[in-house]
């Protein structure tokens, strides 16, 4: 776990993530400017650090309703504005980027931040980036696998010799700068089903599992499949951290939390995915055995601890800003996280 800068003794890590979406507040129909949204994301990272949150990450989506296409630039600003919070991508679409450039960027962010940078590499759930950057969607799988392998190789070796199909060969190429402590934690982003998790297990890389909604027990299957695949492939799953990511929102009561956040998630999903979030499914999200961490602080603490008991994961990251949620609401959530949620979670998951 040390290699990935995780200390299991200090309990479950709690993080925040944003996709960098840029959506009008459904209550007013008004959308803040790109500039304001980007600055608020940087501000959010600072506030998260002050509240004692462990981790903050920013994603890239190259299409309408998003604004952190240049997510490494935003992360550079966050690196400079903060001192101890871990920072990462969620995720970096390695398929359509050059792994050399990605490594250069993140190694630099690692130096600016004094060793706090991590990469979460994903395959993209929105594929606008393929056309925009000149890649063929038919190469979706292979682009990811080849470039992800190259990224891992660069992380291990400063001088790289490599040949592949989607990038010019590297002959004794020196990839610099190097991260502060030699290498970066690099995670593989995985969607729900076990088939995808198994691939992360084969490669023996830490896994980030996205969970929008559904029973904890379903996602447990993916995590088990990941660990089994890792062990079968000669890795030790005890040394591989697992992180989960999903919706989060707290208010005084569960009903208030649902009422406040539902319009944002529903309208945001309509715009970015083309399907809203069915109210019936959303209502079931309040079930203690559902992965969606939306509710009263008491319920959310109970849910996160239950998930930790079932998953045995090392990090949970929360998405609470999706769909144009206003900054004052985000501030209030961070306050509650810092004063009520983090202390309980650390108390119950820390090794005594």
């Amino acid at each position, binding site marked *: 776990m040390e290699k990935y800068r995780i200390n299991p003794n200090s309990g479950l890590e709690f993080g925040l993530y944003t996709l960098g979406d840029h959506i009008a507040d459904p209550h007013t129909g008004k959308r803040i400017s790109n500039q304001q949204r980007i600055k608020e994301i940087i501000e959010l990272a600072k506030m998260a650090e002050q509240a004692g949150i462990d981790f903050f990450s920013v994603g890239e989506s190259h*299409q309408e309703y998003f604004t952190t296409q240049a997510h490494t630039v935003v992360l550079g600003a966050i690196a400079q504005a903060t001192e101890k919070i871990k920072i990462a991508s969620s995720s970096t679409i390695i398929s359509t980027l050059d792994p050399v450039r990605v490594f250069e960027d993140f190694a630099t962010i690692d130096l600016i931040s004094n060793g706090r940078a991590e990469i979460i590499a994903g395959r993209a759930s*929105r*594929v*606008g980036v393929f056309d925009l950057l000149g890649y063929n*969607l*038919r190469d*979706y799988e292979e682009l990811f696998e080849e470039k992800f392998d190259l990224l891992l190789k660069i992380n291990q070796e400063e001088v790289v010799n490599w040949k592949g199909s989607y990038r010019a060969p590297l002959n004794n190429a020196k990839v610099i700068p190097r991260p502060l402590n030699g290498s970066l934690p690099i995670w593989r982003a995985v969607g729900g089903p076990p088939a995808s998790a198994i691939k992360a297990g084969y490669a023996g890389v830490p896994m980030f599992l996205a969970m929008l909604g559904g029973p904890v027990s379903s996602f447990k299957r993916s995590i088990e499949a990941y660990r089994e695949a890792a062990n079968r492939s000669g890795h030790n799953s005890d040394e591989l951290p697992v992180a989960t990511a999903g919706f989060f929102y707290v208010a005084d009561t569960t*009903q208030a939390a*649902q*009422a406040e956040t*539902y319009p944002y998630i529903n309208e945001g999903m309509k715009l*970015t*995915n*083309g*399907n809203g979030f*069915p*109210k*019936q499914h*959303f*209502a079931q999200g309040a079930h203690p055995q559902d992965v969606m961490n939306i509710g009263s602080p008491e319920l959310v603490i109970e849910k996160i601890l239950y998930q930790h008991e079932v998953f045995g994961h090392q990090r949970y990251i929360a998405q609470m800003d999706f769909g144009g949620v206003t900054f004052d609401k985000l501030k209030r959530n961070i306050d509650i996280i810092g004063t009520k949620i983090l202390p309980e979670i650390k108390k119950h998951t820390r090794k005594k």
Partner: protein
Amino acid sequence: MKIVGLSGSIVGSKTRTAMERTINIISEKYPEIEVTLIDLADFNIQFSDGRNYLEYEGDTAYVTQTIMEADAVVIGTPVFQASIPATLKNIFDLLPEKAFIDKVVGFVVTAGSPKHYLVAEQQLKPILAYMKAQIVQTYVFLEEQDFYRKEIVSDDVIFRLERLVEDIVTLTKTYESIRKEKEAEYGF
């Protein structure tokens, strides 16, 4: 209320004829309903490549988005090789897996032989159910003898189409009010 008619074949005329008639019945009986007929023969639709439907362009984007915005969909399908035509299946493949959630879907089937009557029952309905449609269980089945020179000549068929339209509209209204009532109960 928005209803979209989808004529699912790019060959022949029976399905289109039946769909035009169906759409006419809707507009005459319910002028307040916004109704659109999509005849796949008029569009150049690409094969599904797995992307989100919002990310297609041109005709493919128009057709998928129009269907997604509907409250109810009337599908017209012929029977090809004892199944639905590939053009119609492609539309389903282009859409998200829960595309028909909260939508009422009814359909009319045309075929060259009455022996094909159960094709839609056994092959179209499972797809619609998987995609979460509120299915209008009874459909109208038309065969060769019901047409003459691109007109429907059977009064029986016309009566059945009128009943289908009525069922679709009634079920859409009913479903919407049930859903609203149910959603209000959640309190958020």
